[in-house]
């Protein structure tokens, strides 16, 4: 199914390339996001455009058609290099599949920086500017554990889809933070434990998240803690819980910190979420590209762009900010 889907996406993918600014400067930086439409990447592009404008360089931007569209990203990368980009910023849709193309680009002297999502292996790129997704999961895990103290946890996890490193890192971080048996950060598998009575895939989608939560409640109606991969999935889970009359007794924790998500924290739909900063990632990426063009020095290694726990009901021992701060820093429309 997935394979057919990918084929279709491939045939249908038109990764458009267009220069955002045609400045006289010769420095070109390419930005390739997973999709054009996800608010997270829209914000990322804004950050890159801001930085490019300030530093007087040209930003080329493109995206895959859908999450998982590797071929579209490969095409975009080739076209950007042909257009003269010496730095490529990319949020890899497929952690492994993109690696050969990145290697080719780097051999040709292009600086490649991964934003938000790591490649597999991580060393395939020059540098990675990202939120540590494992830490993001860890924070909400620790928060939930403190909050549930003395209560027996019956957990459901609404994950991304099979085989995605971000999905595994957030999930395993949550497990570790909660004090359950978990897997290390490098693992691409989802850890399981007796307390987790249901693990289902939400594809980060609200409707699919709702269906997954409904099915989990059928499996075990006593679920009292729900981990979700992102805030749309959390909204779907809440809808399912509300329909079952259980929304009051179940805690939902999530990751992302988008404006809609923070609003939902404020409204009590989500208890806590780990906020990420896509704008910062892109800004730093363009900076690095300009530095490379001017000095020939490449950045390297992993830079954590930070993650903050957002909640209006803080617990001792886990650092957090309230939703007001969260709203000021959130991405997407307010």
């Amino acid at each position, binding site marked *: 199914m997935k394979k057919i889907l990918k084929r279709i996406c491939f045939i249908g993918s038109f990764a458009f390339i267009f220069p955002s600014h045609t400045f006289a400067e010769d420095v070109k930086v390419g930005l390739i996001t997973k999709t054009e439409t996800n608010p997270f990447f829209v914000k990322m592009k804004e950050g890159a455009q801001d930085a490019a404008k300030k530093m007087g360089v040209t930003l080329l931007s493109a995206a895959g058609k859908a999450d998982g569209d590797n071929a579209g990203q490969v095409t975009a990368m080739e076209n950007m290099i042909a257009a003269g980009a010496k730095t490529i910023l990319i949020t890899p849709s497929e952690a492994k599949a993109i690696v050969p193309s990145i290697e080719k680009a780097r051999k040709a002297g292009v600086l490649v920086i991964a934003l938000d999502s790591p490649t597999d292996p991580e060393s395939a790129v020059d540098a990675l500017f990202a939120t540590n997704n494992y830490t993001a999961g860890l924070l909400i895990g620790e928060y939930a554990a403190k909050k549930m103290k003395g209560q027996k946890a019956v957990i459901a996890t609404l994950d991304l889809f099979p085989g995605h490193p971000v999905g595994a890192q957030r999930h395993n971080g949550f497990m570790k933070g909660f004090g359950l048996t978990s897997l290390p950060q490098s693992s691409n598998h989802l850890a399981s434990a007796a307390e987790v009575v249901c693990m289902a895939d939400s594809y980060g989608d609200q409707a699919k998240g709702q269906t997954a939560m409904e099915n989990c409640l059928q499996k075990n109606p006593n679920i009292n803690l729900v981990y979700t991969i992102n805030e749309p999935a959390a909204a779907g889970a809440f809808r399912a819980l509300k329909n079952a009359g259980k929304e009051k007794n179940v805690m939902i924790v999530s990751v992302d910190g988008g404006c*809609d998500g923070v609003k939902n924290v404020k409204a009590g739909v989500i208890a806590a979420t780990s906020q990420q900063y896509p704008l910062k990632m892109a800004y730093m990426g363009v900076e690095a590209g300009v530095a490379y063009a001017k000095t020939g020095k490449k950045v390297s290694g992993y830079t954590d762009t930070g993650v903050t726990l957002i909640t209006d009901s803080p617990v001792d021992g886990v650092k957090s900010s309230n939703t007001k701060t969260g709203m000021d820093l959130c991405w997407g429309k307010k």
Partner: protein
Amino acid sequence: MINTIKNQLASHSILGPFGALVFAILFFSTQSPIFLTPHNLSLILQQVMVLGVLAIGQTLIILTAGIDLSCGMIMVIGSIVMAKLVAVSGWPVWMAVSCGIVISSFIAMGNGLLVTKIKLPPFIVTLGMSNIAFAMNQLYSEAQTVTNLPSNLTFLGERINFFDGYINYGVFLFLFLFLLMGFALKYTAPGRHIYAIGNNIEAVRLAGINTTRLLVGVYTVAGFFYGVAGWLAISRSGVGDPQAGQTENLDSITAVVLGGVSLFGGRGSLFGTFIGILIIGCMRNGLILMGVPSVMQILITGVLVILAVTIDSSRRQS
């Protein structure tokens, strides 16, 4: 013995899918005590109603030997139009819903016109339309989820008690539309002509039937169902989500094929599609109840699809 089974399968296209559904139900009920409860079964119906109504449109098109890859995206356009007109522009619900359904029908009619007037292959036309519709709904919605929908727009998602479970109004609409179209396909002249087009369009044309008008009509009616599916989608989720519907095109084709409808056109029934939808719903629900990793569901669906197409192909040859 084997020949008898083959002959039976050949003459009754519904037997295979029906057997698969019965097998799935029996299997899951031995694996989980919850599976066969009215509450769980009513839940499965709620979970398949959106895909089910989409699959009605998809069935009509596949019966004419066409295919529609744009159904999910057209559905989302319909749903975003309805949600925005009500939540942002303050239109009355009935006007917004009608407008959404009409727009969906118009876009789908565009598919029909391109297929008939310019004689383009449905696969490519609808693939292109899927891209166009996707872009349109992102632009129109500014890639933002439309929230704060009033309850009279989403009343189809409201539930009434049904045995010890509950069922929502949308499920009744979904079942009603299946019955209605099933009847129309079987007992009305245009319904029979749809089958005939799938078998031999030239013969139908020579028999004096305006095949262009009929085909455009089929695509338009399919668009109507996509619009209704969009309404069901916002009723179920309570929001207008521009990111929704991305896998629904292939999911609906999967359901139609699982239900024994021939991808070559002209064979199969809406009842078959209904069975196909239930197979998908039961598997999604049953495998989670069993605690099986979701990747297994993808695997099993793939095997079933190939099996269904194999049976159909051998039936054509015999």
